[in-house]
């Protein structure tokens, strides 16, 4: 699985991903792929738009790094790029946010201590 940490410092790459997801059709496509791989025709099935239009959306998603596709014989299979959705960034962000909240509580605790309370 590709590692996301190379992306942690690349704001532009995240921006490309967000641009790709600014479109509701592409969000639905990514949502579908998050539950498993799909061929292009499977991916196009729920949408009432032409196959070339779907393929165009898919291109944007591929260029953003969110989706990878592979042609085997006549079938093109689409997969969420595992590296793009690594939980590492989320995990670090969660840890940091958790600490921001804790340190706020630490401040409140200190402020609530009586002034001359001896240190433990």
């Amino acid at each position, binding site marked *: 699985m590709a590692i996301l940490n190379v992306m942690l410092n690349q704001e532009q790459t995240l921006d490309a991903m967000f641009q790709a997801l600014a479109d509701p059709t592409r969000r639905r496509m990514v*949502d579908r792929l998050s539950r498993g791989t799909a061929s292009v025709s499977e991916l196009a099935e729920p949408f009432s738009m032409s196959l070339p239009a779907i393929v165009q959306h898919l291109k944007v998603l591929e260029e953003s790094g969110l989706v990878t596709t592979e042609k085997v014989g006549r079938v093109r299979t689409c997969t969420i790029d*595992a590296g793009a959705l690594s939980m*590492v960034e989320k*995990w670090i962000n969660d840890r940091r946010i958790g600490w921001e909240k804790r*340190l706020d509580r630490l401040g409140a605790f200190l402020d609530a201590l009586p002034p001359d309370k001896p*240190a433990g």
Partner: protein
Amino acid sequence: MTDRSIAHGSFTVERTYNHPVSRVFSAWSNPEFKRQWFGSPDPAKPNGVFEFKEGGREYNADRMGNDDFVYDVSYRDIVPDNRIIYTYEMHMNGRRISVSVATIEFTARDGGTRMVLREDGAFLDGLDTSAQREAGTNYLMDQVGLWLDKQ
């Protein structure tokens, strides 16, 4: 078979408190103090292990949603009123998911205390299950929503 991988990540958080260093340090060293700001608000939760000394252990187990987390700390370096350095592991549902080193430094400043916490971690095996990948997508969608609001 589990795919094996390591990803490295760090963060730093800082605060300035209008309190002397010894008081701020005691919020970490005194278990009664630490309990009041650190962790689970659940009063029914049994006390974990807390040994604030070099080589001492701190251990907390928590349930968040459908997941069980364990936070297992080993204090490595303690200089009173100056710094605390510990290493820790996190486990999720019985699996080790990270190993990290944390440093906390305390500096007197203008009658108060500047406190800096930094963590450097190794995140293991991509935390990668299909359920987590779906959760990762949901997270990404939330981030997109926030980003779109700013445009």
